[in-house]
């Protein structure tokens, strides 16, 4: 395959192609009314970065409050609003759209050999819905916020808080449709827009992962929308579905909520896994070990992922036998993740490995996701869940998966495809430094939280017993380092837009279709219809 041929790209003489998707049209309107999947990806990238830093600032406030055992930096109500908005923004406005709406949007048509997604205008609509949801969430924050926690547990959210539950719910409802449209668009595109010769098993694993995530988006998100509507109706006119006094059941809300929100975890992580497959393959100059196993494990995660939601409710008085079933299914969903990890590790075997920034992030992902996944098994085991659930163990677990896993994958992917997206290289040395800083900061922030959880420190506490302080100080110190790790890429990537080295078509000697075209690509992606005659 071409990846084994050592031929330097024409980097010395390369220049940015005269015509590309970035300069074909100019002016704000040409961006706001575009239906080009690549431009929409850029719109998304800017918006999710904006929301990430708002969510990150809120995380900073949380860690500052927790520096001391007393609730002293802010009132408990304020603290409750801060962690609620942190959760809402990070999950619905950053993690869910992060990889799919940016890299997925940019790359899926190109990887399939298509000119655009199947429904380009729906794609733009999806961004507008995302922005509407995001701005409404911001308005909510300005108008006093909401303090239900991102889980909106009834009857707290329906009868007991007097904050902006309805506008937050509406924001999530709208952003949810943006996610449904993106998923729908990907599914149609993957089924209908593949170039000649691009069979299912020649598709890049990145596309497989997005296909699995898209199924979850399309099937899961409507259930969240239903749950939100029911909360709104309960809060405004008291329909009583969740009210035991009217014959309703408050646990029903949690069933509905987690029916979306557990698969949502896979919506967030699967696209990240797709990124890791591409990056590890490229920088070890080998095809992914066990392509079929990795592809099917994505689908297996998506399928099993729908049948584990009640593991969030083991101590909530659901039947002991339901607990048995959900605990068993949770064990099954852990297996495909293990399969992926080992296949990635064996992709390195007899490769020819280099350690550019995307690869460093990918290594970080593998370590942190392994820890995140294994600690998930602690929680899926019904017995140990009793002790660990609702504590900082949970907080640490899902941050290892979401931040250690997904955010690492996102940064890996952004660095990997940055030359394709912008036509310029990021500066390597400082980027590698940022990757290392992020890894250290991350572990220092979240590892102590596992110990806090085993000790029993409950989540969502503004104050805590003094013997927990040392570990919290470590965590806050780590968060500071992590903050630096996240600021660095924003600075040097922005710098590279003007001063970065010209990338050329294929700086990584990678095999994917996206590397066979110019960087940045033409608006139409391809000048002639590509024909796929080998496997990705």
């Amino acid at each position: 395959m071409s990846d084994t041929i050592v031929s330097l790209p024409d980097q010395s003489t390369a220049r940015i192609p005269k015509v590309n998707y970035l300069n074909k049209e100019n002016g704000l309107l040409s961006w706001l009314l575009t239906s080009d999947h690549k431009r929409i990806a850029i719109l998304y990238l800017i918006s999710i970065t904006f929301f990430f830093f708002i969510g990150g600032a809120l995380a900073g406030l949380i860690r500052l409050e927790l520096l001391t055992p007393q609730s002293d930096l802010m009132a408990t109500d304020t603290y409750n609003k801060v962690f609620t908005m942190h959760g809402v923004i990070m999950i619905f406005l950053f993690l869910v759209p992060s990889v799919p709406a940016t890299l997925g949007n940019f790359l899926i048509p190109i990887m399939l050999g298509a000119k655009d997604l199947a429904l380009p205008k729906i794609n733009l609509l999806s961004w507008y819905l995302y922005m509407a949801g995001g701005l409404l969430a911001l308005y909510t924050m300005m108008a006093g916020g909401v303090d239900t926690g991102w889980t909106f547990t009834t009857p707290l959210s329906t009868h007991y808080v007097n904050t902006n539950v309805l506008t937050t719910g509406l924001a999530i409802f709208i952003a949810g449709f943006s996610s449904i449209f993106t998923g729908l668009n990907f599914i149609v595109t993957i089924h209908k827009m593949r170039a000649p010769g691009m069979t299912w098993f020649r598709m890049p694993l990145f596309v497989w992962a997005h296909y699995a995530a898209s199924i979850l988006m399309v099937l899961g998100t409507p259930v969240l929308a239903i749950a939100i509507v029911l909360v709104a109706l309960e809060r405004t006119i008291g329909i009583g579905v969740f009210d035991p006094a009217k014959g309703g059941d408050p646990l029903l809300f949690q069933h509905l909520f987690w029916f979306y929100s557990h698969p949502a975890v896979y919506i967030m992580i699967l696209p990240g896994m797709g990124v890791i497959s591409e990056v590890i393959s490229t920088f070890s100059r080998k095809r992914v070990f066990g392509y079929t196993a990795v592809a099917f494990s994505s689908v297996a995660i998506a399928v099993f992922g729908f049948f584990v939601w009640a593991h969030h409710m083991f101590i909530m008085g659901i039947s002991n036998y339901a607990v048995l079933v959900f605990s068993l299914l949770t064990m099954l969903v852990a297996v495909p993740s293990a399969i992926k990890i080992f296949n990635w590790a064996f992709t390195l075997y007899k490769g020819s490995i280099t350690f550019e920034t995307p690869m460093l992030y990918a290594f970080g992902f593998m370590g942190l996701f392994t820890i995140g996944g294994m600690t998930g098994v602690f929680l899926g085991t019904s017995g140990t869940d009793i002790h660990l659930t609702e504590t900082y163990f949970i907080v640490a677990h899902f941050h290892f998966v979401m931040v250690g896993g997904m955010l690492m994958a996102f940064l890996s992917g952004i660095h990997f495809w940055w030359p394709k997206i912008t036509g310029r290289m990021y500066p390597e040395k400082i980027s590698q430094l940022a990757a290392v800083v992020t890894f250290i900061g991350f572990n220092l922030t979240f590892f102590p939280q596992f110990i806090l959880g085993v000790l029993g420190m409950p989540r969502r506490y503004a104050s805590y017993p003094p013997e927990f302080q040392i570990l919290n100080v470590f965590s806050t110190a780590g968060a500071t380092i992590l903050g630096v790790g996240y600021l660095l890429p924003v600075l040097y990537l922005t710098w590279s837009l003007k001063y970065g080295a010209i990338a050329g078509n294929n700086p990584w000697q990678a095999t994917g279709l996206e590397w066979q075209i110019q960087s940045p690509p033409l608006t139409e992606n391809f000048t002639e219809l590509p024909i796929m005659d080998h496997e990705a």
Partner: protein
Amino acid sequence: MSHISPVIWQFLVKWMTNFALFPPEASRIAPQMDALLFFITLVSLIGLTIVVLLVVSFSILYSKKRHPVAVQIEGSTLLEATWTIIPLGLFLVMFVWGALIYFRVFTPPANAMNIYVVGKQWMWKAEHPGGQHEINSLHVPTGQPVQLTLISQDVFHSFSIPAFRVKREAIPGRYTTVWFEATTPGTYHLFCTQYCGTDHSQMIGDVVVMTPGDFKQWLASSTSGASLAQNGERLFASLSCAACHNTRPDARGPSLANVYGAKLPLATGETITADDAYLREAILNPSQHITQGYAPIMPTYQGQVSEEGVIALVEYIKNLNSDYRIQQTTNTTDLLPESEGKAAPAAAQTTAPGKVKP
């Protein structure tokens, strides 16, 4: 050492003198839970070590410098099977082991002493059978299985005692139970772990574990004068429950003697066991639970009785063993003199007034 800044010095002193890495084990289930925790931790560490070793050694062995040309390998069915079956096997061991512990934690033994706990924004109220009330604290003896019957008066709360390794959600409108047997006297953290609004982080307290002797003393010194069942009896009288639930042949409601634990035929044709949950429902939503042969005339007591009141009523009904006992309630206007002498000693349930035979 004088050149170390006072802040760092303070930090170091704190680090040396006051920090925790592992919670105390103060219940019978705690060591069993920890054994499983250690097992999963061990498996995780081995798994993580394998992944890290693979990545690091391959990175060294097959770096581009040492290994300039990659060898393409498609995969290996044998290896795929290995890393599917071994993790699956280990996960299944954890599943079975975990399920055994789970069932143990949520299946109370028959001789457990029951304490009711009501959660409300933002406090825990415990009701001992002998009528002792506690707020944000729970006193229990060692060596005696204790069952908690939990309910919330408003939102979801969760009753967590990390030193016992038990935790149970307190849910509005429904009883949940959990049990433990404390082993080591001492004072332990009690947390609300389900986010419940403004003062969630203040909904904390102490679990005080005492030797049986000390506990007996504590019970005696904390008595409120009437047992829980006696409070229920008073409520039963003041709500005029006996107007219908009397023992007369023309009574409009069924007799409640020996009703607890009995199988009741309902008007709908089904049969139901009259447990705590049923009795609570029958008081608050009587129209849904008509006993066969009676007219649906009982009004709802929703909003008229607090969760603590319902608990007292349930405890009273639990202890009604004879029609005579109900007649006593019906006939007695001033209950206090009768109850005072009998304030419950340690295993209060067995000597609650309901059991007093004529």
